[in-house]
């Protein structure tokens, strides 16, 4: 019996004195094989699930790829390119693929609508200003934020309005009311300052600058610049989609902030009005709001005052999205700790100063992701305007299918697939941006 047991006192044959060097994991649990085992085939049930998913992919992906790419028609001049022989075209019977040639032929319409060809450079300048101003604004690493915001808020809207419509508005009637308003505002600023025994000059200066700016804007809108007038009913495509989405979000931000502040106000009537406004617009579908603004709104206006169709849709969209924006902003206001309000009040700031300098900058920063998400929702919702007869991007794609030049069974599906790709690219990149901002704001908050 030479069994080595320490108890018996027999010599122990081998005791390891040193730690063995670490060994790599077995080949089956590392590298690609290990990954596959762990993530795809860890158990019988999971294996069945994985195989089922692969089968589903096999069912879905090849037909889609064939339709989009391999069987698709990329060039052609009319419907014969995208029709089968039985339908009077050149494709073999049973062919089923996308007709990108049709999309190519309509590309100009999809972007500009029926905007006159020789005037499209105006739209191009607007695109350039928009993306040239927006992209640096969205990138935190690029400076000149203040200048950029001034450009986007003051220069861009006026320039866009003049470029797209051609300017030359009838502004004669607005000078007098504006002057009266200016006098009233100056008097109010002076009165408030005197009442609180403070220096009236800064308030008067700000008011004067604002009204001088308004006078300049009104005068600019009245000038013609020699641009040809383009009525809004020939606008269409991505142009209209962008105009509605951007105007909607631009109008909804200030209105939404005002509503959110009003909803959290101590004044009962103000709070009541704001709650009713917000809950009403949030409680009804956008399409009924658009119906209302296109059918009912003209009835509420004095005789002779008419808006064009696009403007009416814009009003509906702005009312609707400002109610949603108000709730987003309210979320930011509620997320701020009470100490921020108390600290501001302890410093002796009045309500306006507290909001402007302490509360809103923090609250709005907190809700940037929420604002972007509202914008995504609004961007998707712009498609609804086609129901009231505007030709937005989706609307112009739908209406192009009635053109006999390209009428084939695949035309409708091709147009819709193209639209979904474009909408997906826009919305997906915006949602990624919102996630990126969320992370950025999150870390800056913790440190």
């Amino acid at each position, binding site marked *: 019996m030479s069994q080595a047991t320490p108890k018996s006192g027999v010599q122990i044959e081998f005791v390891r004195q040193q730690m063995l060097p670490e060994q790599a994991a077995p080949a089956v649990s590392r590298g690609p094989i290990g990954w596959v085992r*762990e*993530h*795809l085939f*860890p158990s019988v049930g*999971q294996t069945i*699930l*994985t195989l089922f*998913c*692969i089968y*589903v*992919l096999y069912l879905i992906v090849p037909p889609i790829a064939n339709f989009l790419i391999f069987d698709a028609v990329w060039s052609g001049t009319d419907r014969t390119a995208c029709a089968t022989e039985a339908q009077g075209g050149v494709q073999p019977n049973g062919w089923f693929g996308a007709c990108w040639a049709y999309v190519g032929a309509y590309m100009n319409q999809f972007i500009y609508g029926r905007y006159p060809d020789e005037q499209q450079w105006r739209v191009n300048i607007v695109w350039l200003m928009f993306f040239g101003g927006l992209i640096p604004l969205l990138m935190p690493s690029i400076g000149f934020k203040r200048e950029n915001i001034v450009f986007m808020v003051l220069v861009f809207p006026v320039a866009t309005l003049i470029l797209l419509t051609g300017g030359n508005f009838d502004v004669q009637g607005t000078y007098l009311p504006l002057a009266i308003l200016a006098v009233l505002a100056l008097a109010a600023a002076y*009165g*408030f300052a*005197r*009442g*609180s025994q403070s220096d009236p000059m800064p308030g008067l200066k700000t008011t004067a600058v604002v009204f001088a700016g308004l006078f300049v804007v009104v005068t600019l809108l009245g000038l013609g610049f020699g641009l040809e007038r383009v009525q809004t009913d020939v606008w269409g495509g991505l142009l209209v989609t962008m105009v509605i989405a951007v105007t909607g979000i631009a109008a909804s931000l200030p209105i939404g902030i005002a509503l959110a502040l009003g909803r959290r106000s*101590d*004044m009962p*009537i*103000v709070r009541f*009005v704001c709650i009713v406004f917000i*809950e*009403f617009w*949030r*409680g*009804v*579908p956008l*399409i*009924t709001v658009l*119906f*209302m603004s296109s*059918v*009912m709104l*003209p*009835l*509420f*206006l*004095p*005789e002779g005052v008419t808006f064009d169709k696009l403007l009416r849709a814009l009003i509906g969209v702005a009312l609707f999205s400002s109610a949603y924006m108000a709730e987003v902003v309210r979320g930011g206001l509620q997320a701020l700790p009470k100490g921020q309000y108390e600290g501001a009040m302890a410093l002796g700031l009045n309500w306006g100063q507290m909001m402007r300098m302490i509360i809103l900058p923090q609250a709005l920063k907190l809700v940037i992701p929420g604002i972007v998400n509202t914008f*995504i929702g609004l961007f*998707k*919702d712009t*498609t*609804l305007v*086609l*129901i009231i007869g505007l030709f937005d991007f*989706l609307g112009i794609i*739908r209406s192009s299918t009635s053109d006999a030049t390209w009428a084939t*069974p695949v035309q*409708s*599906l091709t147009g*819709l*697939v193209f*639209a*979904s790709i474009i*909408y*997906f690219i826009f*919305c*997906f990149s915006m*949602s990624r941006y919102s996630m990126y901002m969320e992370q950025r704001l999150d870390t800056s908050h913790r440190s």
Partner: protein
Amino acid sequence: MAVTDMGRGVADAPPKVALLNNPKARSWLFQILLGVAVAYLVYSGWVNMNANLQAAGVASGFGFLGKNAGFSVAQSLIDYDQGTSSYGRVYVVGVLNTLIIAVVGIIFATIMGFLLGIARLSNNWIVSRLATSYVEFARNVPLLLQIFIWYFGVLRLLPQPRESLDFGPLGLLNIRGYFAPKPVWGEGGAFVLYALIIGIAIAFGVSRWAYRRQMATGQRFPSLWVGLGAIVGLPLIVFLGLGAPLTWDMPVLGGFRPSGGMTVIPEFIALLVALSTYTAAFIAEIVRAGILGVSKGQSEAAHALGLRQGQNLRLVVIPQALRIIIPPLTSQYLNLTKNSSLAVAIAYPELTSVFAGTALNQTGQAVEIISITMLTYLTFSLLTSAFMNWYNARVALVER
């Protein structure tokens, strides 16, 4: 001394402030100004509207609801006759069609959404990737476009009635819709329904009794199986005992359209598929957030107490996840109901399409019709938020 006296004197007398700078007075000034402005807007709108309506010679008032509508409606849950039915009835038909698409859509969206939400959390790479791609795609393409894709893109590819896809006992599918077999109850069919109601009552009673007994004695009772047995078994016994009083009216292929059976119109199918797949993507995100929101310590504590995995899910994780999930889930349900108004684009005859669309075009009474439509949706939404408040109050964490 004099200084303190002076100080006291100032403090005693209320400080003299301009009325405009008295916070109370100022707040009332603002409120009165706002009230006057709102009142003026409403008043001038009302005056203008009356003048405009008179100038246009449009009738006003709600008398039109009793008048004969005279147009046909493609789908109606109640009797509707083109010749004799009124606009009021059109409204009811529209509301019912909205409700049916909402209820069916909510059921499908919930099932799909929960499956997708759980799939996104799966450790299985391909499952979670598939679910994620689906969710991203569905959320980032406008709903109206998805409805169009289903209606103009996919359903238009279905065969003509003559070449209908035949699913045997499940009915026929072709470009004119889905033709399902229609159940025809024979004599005594009502007793099966009564049995079902009694079965549900028994199941409910048993589960309450079992719960109370377990609380008192710790003994468990398989109330789930007994309840299921009562709900399924009792009607089944009655059904078989009565000699199976049920026949199916099968759709039969015809030239123009199949005859017999129940017809599900293609607009309904397209809207249902689009609404439920779109909403499911949002529900999936809510479910995922809800499950992730239950901290891991809860599961660990449950395991430490000796609960099995199933019990842990059923008794610990899911109740807490539901607390997070249900409020946003209800608002998704509400969104689905409101989004059903997009049916107007493909002419599925729900409230917006048939009432705010066709009826409005025929009568021209925009103010009344749009107001009724908006108030109807508003009622849905207020009822939903009332439920949500009640639920939140019920499940709110009672903290120290």
